[in-house]
Every structure is written in C-alpha cells, then in structure tokens.
C-alpha cells in the first residue's frame, strides 16, 4: 500500500474504531433539521420551501463542528511532527486527510439526508437536487475546513476559532449550493449555479492541501 493510501486508511481506521464522533456529527445534523419545525411551526408547505436551505445549513454547521479533529489529535500526540518528516510531501498527506475527512464528515450526512427530507416534507425531485448539490458542494466545505484547521492547530484554545474563520469564506459555497436547487417561479439558473459550485469545489480541493501544508509548516517550527 502506498503512503497516500496508508494515511487515508489510518485516518479512517482511527475514526471508525476509536469510538468515533462520526455518529455524533450525524446526530447533530439530524437534530438541527428537527429543531427547525419547532422554531418556525409545523406548516408543511412552509417547511417544504425552507427544506433545501435548512439541510444546507445543517450540513454546513456539522462540517464546521467536526473541523477540530482533522489535525488536532495528530498535533497533540506528535504524529504531525512525524508526518512533516515523511517521504510523502506534506500537501499529499493533507490531501489524504482531506479525503478521509470528507468520507467521515460529509458522506454520513449525505446518507442521513433522506431522513431530514422526510421530516421536512420535501418532494422527491427537490430532494435529488439537494443531494446532488450537497455531494458537489461538501468537498469545498471540507477543503476550506482543512485550511481553517491547519491555521488553528498550533493554538491551544483554537477550537472555536476555525469555524469563525471559515464561515465567511464559505459563503459562496452556500449561495451556489442552495442556488443549484431550483425553487419557485422565475428563470431557472440552477444549472449554472451547480457548475459554479463544482468549479469552487474543484479549485478549493486542488489548492487547499498546499495552503494547509504551508500553514502547518509555518506554525510548527
């Protein structure tokens, strides 16, 4: 197994076997969605209209919440120091961790989203569009998150800081993510929004490992 695969497998194994918080994040995601009807009232039509945005907000919040485990455990037990000395360049390692982070933090949310769709009384067509836009957009959220986590990894009390830094940067992801779901009357621009979302995701995933590696190297020496 090559080094990239080994890093990926290690992160997955650690998260799945170590009594991971994967399920906790999924629970958080579902609970954010469930709280909405209590706040805005159980009107089916209103809920169906709000549902795509609510699912996006729930996914956004749960991905911000899970940021801290991306680098901090490795920083605390010294693994990050070893990874920096490894033969595999640090950006490649960060890319492996990014893929693992997406598999652990975003994929379970995608799998749990039918439940929210049911509770928020979405119709099938807009559910498929929401799922598609989540699948295209969450890599960008994970990539921005990796940058935020790498910047705050050296700070002892940095847990809350990463979401604060990353949330403003993620505004375009939310805009195009929700824009990719056709809603209401008016000209349908969801196709171009989905393409923009895909472009942001691709650019973010291509550049984030380098930025995150730079931040880790700058902060660790």
């Amino acid at each position, binding site marked *: 197994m090559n080094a990239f695969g080994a890093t990926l497998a290690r992160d997955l194994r650690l998260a799945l076997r170590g009594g991971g918080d994967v399920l906790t994040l999924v629970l958080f995601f579902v609970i954010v969605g469930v709280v909405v009807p209590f706040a805005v009232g159980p009107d089916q039509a209103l809920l169906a209209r709000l549902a795509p945005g609510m699912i996006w907000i729930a996914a956004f919040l749960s991905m911000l919440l899970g940021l801290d485990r991306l680098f901090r455990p490795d920083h605390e037990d010294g693994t990050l120091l070893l990874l920096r000395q490894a033969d595999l360049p640090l950006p490649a390692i960060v890319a492996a961790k990014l893929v693992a982070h997406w598999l652990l933090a975003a994929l379970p949310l995608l799998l749990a989203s039918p439940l929210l769709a049911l509770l928020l009384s979405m119709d099938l067509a807009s559910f498929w569009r929401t799922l598609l836009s989540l699948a295209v957009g969450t890599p960008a959220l994970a990539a921005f998150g990796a*940058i935020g986590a790498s*910047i705050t990894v050296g700070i002892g009390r940095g847990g809350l*800081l990463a979401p*604060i830094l990353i949330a403003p940067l993620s505004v*375009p992801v939310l805009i195009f993510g929700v824009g990719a779901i056709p809603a209401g009357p008016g000209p349908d621009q969801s196709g171009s929004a989905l393409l923009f979302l895909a472009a942001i995701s691709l650019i973010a995933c291509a550049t984030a490992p380098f930025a995150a590696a*730079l*931040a880790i190297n700058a902060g660790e020496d």
Partner: protein
Amino acid sequence: MSAMTVVSAPKQRWWNRIAHPGQFVAWTRPLLWPLVLCTALLFAVGLWFAFFNSPQDYQMGDTVRIMYVHVPTAWLSQFVYATMAVSALGSLVWRHPLADVAMKAAAPLGASFTALALFTGSLWGRPTWGTFWEWDGRMTSTLVLLFIYLGIIALWRAFDDQLRGARVIAVFTLVGAVNIPIIKFSVDWWSTLHQPASVFRADGPRMPGSILTPLFVMFFAFTFLFITLQLKSMHTEIKRRRVMSLERRAVQGAADA
C-alpha cells in the same frame, strides 16, 4: 583595497534598511507630524466642502453628504485588505520582519473603516431606500469582509508567539485575498440593489464636479488618516515587541541569578 570592500559589501537598499525595526522607527518618526498636519488640513478642507460648498441632491437633499464619509471608508476597507495581503506576501516570501508588524497594525484599522462604511451606509439607506439593511450584493460582501477582518484580529489575539503566528496569519490573509473576489462575485450574482460603480469608470465619472471635488478631498483625507494611523500603530507594535523581549530577558536574568 577599499574599493574591493565596497564592491563586495552587500548593497544596502531601503528595502533591507527598513527591515531593522529601530532604523524603521528612526526613519519614519520625522514623517509622522507632517502626515498628521496633512491629514488635519485635508479633513478641514474636505469637511468645509462637504458641509458648506457642495450642492444638495435634487432627490436625496442633505443626506447626500453622508457619501463624503461613506465612499472613502468603503474604498479604504478594500485598500487596507490589499495592504495586508501585500504585507502577508512580504512576510511569507521574504520573511521581512516589518511586514508582520504592518499586517498586524492594519487589521484593526481595516475593521474600523469597514464598520464605519457599513454604519454610514445604513444611516444613508434609511432615508433613501427606506431600510437600514438590505441583503444586497455590495452590502453583504462588505459585511463578510468585516467578519474576515474580525477573524484575523481574533487570530492575532489567540497566538501567544506573535512571530510564529505572523506566518500562519499571512497564509490565512492570502487565502482570504484569493477568496474575496469570489465572495464578491457570488454575492452580486445572488442579489443586487446597490448602485454600480459610478466614480471610477472607463468613460469618466458620472457625477458633477461640485460633488466630485469634496469627494476626492475626503478620499485623500481618509487615505492619509490611514497612513498616519498605520505608521503610528506600527511604531507602537515595535515598542510592544521590544518591551516583551526585554521582559523575557529580565525574567531569564532573574532565573539565572
């Protein structure tokens, strides 16, 4: 022989010379008072123009005068970020010690100008648009810019070791600099109410000279205010760092004795 030493000595350019914090302070301190006078003069002239020697708008009346604060601060909110991004580049690429200081000094100033632009904008929006806040492209992207500034300030406060923190923050500043055009574009795409650019256009400004003159004077006044405050807070930061290293040395001396 002496010619040889002159040739082989590394050529000291201003760039390298101001890398020494003490030299930087010694060089720029004489600039401070002239800058203060310049700023005060520009503000005096600009405010006189703005209040007494510029016409009312035929629709907006006297509220148009808010523009003389609103537009310069909005321009500075972006200019200060550009300053920070260039400093971040200097800090990452050349490890220029004063780039760190400039980056740190600019963040609160940029946040203040951005907040001022938003505040005056909402004061202006109430009588003209009938609302303090509207989810419009320019306003929303300025608000996001304010959050980025506040995040950077929070980041500076979180790092115990300012020298190590500076390079990490430089990375974040550059990521933000790449991202801000995308945010701007996406927010514009999302919704639009604010008028498009009307001063800097390819076919010339779309305003009469009687409004443009005070606007440009105020524009320079605010820019000079930024330069003055930036220099002063860089001096303060340099002094703060010197005090910290002296304290560290004192504690070390006490521990050795």
